[in-house]
């Protein structure tokens, strides 16, 4: 998929520097991952790989990731002071740095913890010019770029689940831009990421939530450009 660029891909975004891939991209990965976890975590652990690990300190990649997790956008002046802010919010954070050339040059694994919610591990990559993707949630493959409103589901692998979810969308005339499915084993758990041309109303989420065997559902709104 390679859509023609917008004027605002080349003038803007307004962002905190110094790097669109290593700072703004990091903020956007944190922001999307935070929305997928759905809560401000009590504890968050970041594992940075390759270029993110090697040049992350100088690019403020660490600050950007944490700022995103705390809900800040790329143009928030407080990104630079996010460590102090996290301490005030009682969010415990840590960073580890790795070299693994099987991984994308700019990748990160984020582990979220909160006493009232199951632990989640979310991986993301920064692909350049502030564009990013969430590539894994709890081990399942996804491809969430924040360019579309996206539904994220983890559910029991059984016949008819994709049909049930997509027919709900069809009933609301919601067009699917792209879709990504994965599973760990037949009959175990499966995942669905659906990018949509349009806003997903809350009652669709409620209806999907009522279905049997849906373990996790999130509505991820398009990231501001």
């Amino acid at each position: 998929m390679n859509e023609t660029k917008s004027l605002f891909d080349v003038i803007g975004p307004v962002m905190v520097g110094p790097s669109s891939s290593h700072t703004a991209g990091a903020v956007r990965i944190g922001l999307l991952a935070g929305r997928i976890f759905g809560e401000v975590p009590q504890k968050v652990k970041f594992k940075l790989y390759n270029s993110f690990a090697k040049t992350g300190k100088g690019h403020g990649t660490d600050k950007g990731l944490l700022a995103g997790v705390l809900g800040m956008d790329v143009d928030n002046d407080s990104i630079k002071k996010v460590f102090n802010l996290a301490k005030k919010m009682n969010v415990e954070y840590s960073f580890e740095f790795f070299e693994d050339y099987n991984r994308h040059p700019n990748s990160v694994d984020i582990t979220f913890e909160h006493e009232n919610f199951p632990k989640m591990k979310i991986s993301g990559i920064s692909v350049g010019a502030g564009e990013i993707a969430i590539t894994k949630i709890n081990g399942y493959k996804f491809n969430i770029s924040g360019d579309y409103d996206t539904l994220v589901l983890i559910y029991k692998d059984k016949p008819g689940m994709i049909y049930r979810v997509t027919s709900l969308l069809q009933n609301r005339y919601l067009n699917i831009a792209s879709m990504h499915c994965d599973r760990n084993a037949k009959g175990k758990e499966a995942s669905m990421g659906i990018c949509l041309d349009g806003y997903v109303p809350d009652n669709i989420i409620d209806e999907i939530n009522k279905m049997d065997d849906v373990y996790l559902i999130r509505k991820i709104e398009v990231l501001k450009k």
Partner: protein
Amino acid sequence: MTQITTFSEILETAHNKNKKLYEVCQEIEADVAEISQEEVRDKVKLILDSMKTAIKQGLKSSEKSESGMCGEDCAKLLKQYKKGSLFFTKVYQNVLTYSLATIEQNARMGKIAACPTAGSCGIVPSVIIAIAESLNVDEEIQINALITAGLIGKVVSNKLALAGAVAGCQSECGVAAAMAAAGLVELYGGNNEQILNAAALTLKNIMGLVCDPVAGLVEVPCVKRNAFLSIYSVTGAELALADIQSVIPIDEVVDAMKQVGLMMSPKLKESSEAGLATTPTGLKITEELAKKWNEDI
């Protein structure tokens, strides 16, 4: 209106409609984003405002970046200009200081507008804003100039990712300079052909520019390169406004740039494995920073 992917197409469309390039561009943008042209211009104005804010803040600061490699150059230049001029007239002095002010804000984690990237954010604003001030050009025309600059970057990016890792610095600071040159021609009231010639002339002369940042950071040589290329882009506009033409049409220049970008060794494309990054001094700085940051963790 559908998307346009080459400069010759957009020039022809503008010619047929008897419009300036920025008008065609804002029309397309409005159609694709399903918003009005006024809304497109409002968004551009917000970006222009944030560019002006970044300049203002950068001119006041001499705070060093996290690495300590940069942050004091704009202040040094301003200090010199307080003592007196060197070679540049006031407007060129402002182009230089605005460029450094912006890119140094970027390096110290200040707020900037990427244009087209963060590492090249000083070039377009310094040229358009400093010269608009000197010519006393009103805001609407500055917006026209910024849209014109954006059009150049947008059409180039349809062929070539604007990222040092893909095609070297020619696709970041190089494209920024072409954008600035084209924007400046619009600011001055030049015609569509002159705008595209300014961009073509500018691009041709930075072809093959490598991306070899010391320690992988957007600082050395990026900060000073923004200052250099800001002044350089004025040359592109100056030549084009005299109806000097690029012998090679701009679409072919972009194709050539892409070819050169693909032929460049990956070691010279943002990986810091050659060039300035691996000079004895570059390596020494890289080692020292790695040591310092490891101790921090």
